């Protein structure tokens, strides 16, 4: 056991750190904010492309896909350094972290060149079409249908919660291509350009604001998709959906760590030097937050190490459950402690951080509301508990 990372990993961090010092967009440059998770402002696209060219964007990939064949540990220190600096490699996170890697893993050379690389270079943005009304966490129950028709498929149905769809160039959509086989067996993955006739994206407001447009309903009404847009084999969409995130899963916890760290920093800055810093009850929850953040970091490191050494990391559910619950608790306590000081609801009512995504620099109430999302999206805390109980503790279904 050691408190330090191996020297090789630290060397990569140092190199990356120097690169970031030289290349991170300036405060003056990064003023235009994105309006959704598929709306990447020009300055962000430029930076993302620079990351691609330098091989820092998806470091585990080969250079032609924005990487440097880095080991997981190296990928991790790169990710950690970005997190520490609150520098975002992409403002189309699902495009970068899920959709492009899916196409790189399962797609044809032409799909890689036409769809994946532009997403990586910041030239296109993409949205992920998984959830449907009524299906929720239950992917096997999806009902959007694609019927083979000549040189392609005709798609009918509806997706929901499709983040950024209205700002995206295309959607990687999971559709039912064989209605006669059980549940997840008849699903395929299609690249559907949003400009396709018959595709309608309807963004809707979130709990935070009527004008916070990221979620979409997406309607497919006899939308024709060419056969060449099928990703992976026909009826093999389940593998595309579940196989995309490989060892990178071991780094997902960093986003919750960032949330915790954000409250630690912003709340700390807000109260340091005031009488709240001396208040025992504030200290009580703030101390718990510090312990939670440290524990998440330690458990996260362990999970990265296990994955790097080839073990199966069954702990992602733990990190998700623990990290998201801790993040919600922290924002709730911060809101309560600040009392009337937390009333103000303008976006700049919390300290502004250079390049920060809005969910981290929003008002305390916004932070509180958004913290619910992390205990729900990507599998609710209830579902994580079921998984842990059954897979780790071995309790009966």
């Amino acid at each position: 056991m050691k408190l330090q990372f191996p020297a090789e990993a630290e060397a990569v961090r140092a190199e990356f750190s120097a690169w970031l010092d030289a290349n991170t967009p300036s405060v003056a440059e990064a003023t235009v904010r994105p309006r959704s998770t598929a709306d990447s402002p020009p300055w962000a696209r430029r930076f993302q492309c620079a990351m691609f060219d330098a091989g820092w964007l998806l470091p585990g990939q080969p250079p032609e896909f924005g990487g440097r064949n880095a080991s997981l540990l190296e990928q991790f220190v790169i990710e950690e350094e970005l997190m520490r600096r609150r520098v975002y490699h992409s403002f189309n996170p699902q495009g970068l972290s899920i959709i492009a890697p899916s196409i790189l893993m399962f797609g044809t050379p032409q799909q890689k060149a036409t769809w994946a690389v532009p997403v990586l270079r910041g030239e296109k943005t993409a949205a992920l079409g998984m959830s449907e009304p009524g299906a929720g966490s239950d992917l096997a129950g999806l009902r959007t249908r694609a019927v083979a028709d000549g040189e392609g498929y005709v798609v009918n149905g509806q997706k929901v919660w499709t983040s950024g769809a209205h700002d995206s160039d295309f959607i990687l959509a999971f559709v039912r291509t064989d209605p006669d086989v059980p549940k997840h067996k008849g699903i395929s993955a299609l690249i559907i350009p949003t400009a396709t006739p018959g595709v309608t994206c309807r963004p809707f407001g979130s709990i935070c604001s009527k004008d916070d447009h990221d979620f979409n309903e997406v309607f497919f009404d006899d939308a024709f998709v060419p056969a060449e847009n099928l990703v992976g084999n026909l009826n093999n969409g389940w593998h595309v959906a579940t196989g995309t995130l490989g060892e990178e899963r071991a780094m997902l916890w960093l986003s919750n760590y960032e949330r915790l760290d954000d409250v630690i920093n912003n709340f700390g800055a807000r109260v340091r030097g005031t009488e709240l810093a001396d208040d025992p009850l504030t200290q009580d929850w703030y101390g718990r937050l510090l312990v939670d953040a440290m524990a998440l970091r330690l458990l996260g490191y362990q999970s990265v190490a296990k994955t790097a050494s080839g073990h199966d990391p069954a702990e992602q559910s733990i990190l998700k459950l623990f990290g998201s619950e801790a993040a919600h608790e922290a924002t709730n306590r911060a809101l309560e402690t600040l009392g009337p000081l937390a009333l103000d609801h303008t976006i700049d009512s919390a300290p502004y951080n250079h390049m920060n995504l809005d969910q981290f620099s929003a008002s305390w109430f916004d932070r509180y509301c958004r913290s619910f999302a992390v205990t729900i999206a990507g599998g609710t805390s209830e579902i994580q508990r079921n998984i842990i109980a059954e897979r780790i503790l071995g309790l009966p279904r």
Partner: protein
Amino acid sequence: MELELDDDQRTLQETVRGIIAKECTPAFVRAVIEDGLDPSPWWDTMVGLYWPALAIAEDVGGLGMTWIELAILLEELGHAVDPSPYLATTTQFVPIVRRCGDAAQAARWLGGVAAGGITGALALGEHTVRATADDGGWRLDGSVAYVVDADRADEIAVVATAHDGVGVYVVERASAGAALTIDPIPVFDHTTHIAGLSLEGVVVSGDRRLGGSDLAEGIAVAVEEATLGWSVVTVGACQRILELVVDHVKQRHQFGVPIGSFQAVKHKAVDMYVAIQRARAIAQYAALTFVEDDPRRSIAVSMAKVAAGDCQEVVLRNGVQLFGGMGFTWENDLHIALRRAKLCVTMFGSTIEHRRRVARDALLGEGAA
């Protein structure tokens, strides 16, 4: 103890619910939030129903009912997320005038509220506003943060400190002119008006200084009424959330069954329900202590604020969680009630402060509670 509503009170509750269901609908509240619709017609409807007059004494034109009836109404208004100036007028302005004013002042302002001509607010500037005698009247200088309805109330009762101690001065907003600056704060509950107040030489006539005898005690009790008002409204908003959630989990299916059949869902919903029962019972008890002028009143109010604060925490956490993604949309009414309920923790003392107050009374005080 008799803690059940009597028949008249139950009838009142039913009547209020019926009227709100017709007049202060979710669509109406949403239009106020989204389109900036003016809620005044709804206030006028309430005036027509004598709701502002409810707990005002009969001799100044009120209906002479008690805090029990007022609480019945406030809970329903919290449930509806009422966008009117009812809360501040009846639980802040009315109490300060009633507790601190003389007979003429009561007739003037309480009568005015009862008759429907006046809405009011309360600005607690005991340590931040100075009053100086000025040619038979008073001159006010200073500022007060976070005043409910300061931007729309007709009359603002300002607590200020003069050479002879703390006093209360009723400022007519419309006539104060440039000496009074009001800065609305964009709070997260879009249906509640909160503003900061700056007074630079606001002059009020002598008859606008409240002339009651024990002003310090009067102000303290008025603040207790205001605190109880928030607590009751919070219970109503939480009840609304529970109803939305219970409907949702009965209808929403997953893995082939309604999610309300899952134990984890049931238990979270029950914890919400119990938290609401607890908060409502204590709020009613606190209301009763006003009715009976019980010596436990002050601590009862703190208990009510604590229970309301505990309640919103459980109800919001579990409520949003049980709604899942559906609760995360603007279209869902959940967040409208959530915003009102959350406001509770920011106003008139935090849960923690009131909880410590309750404990200190028992551990360090005379043990009156």
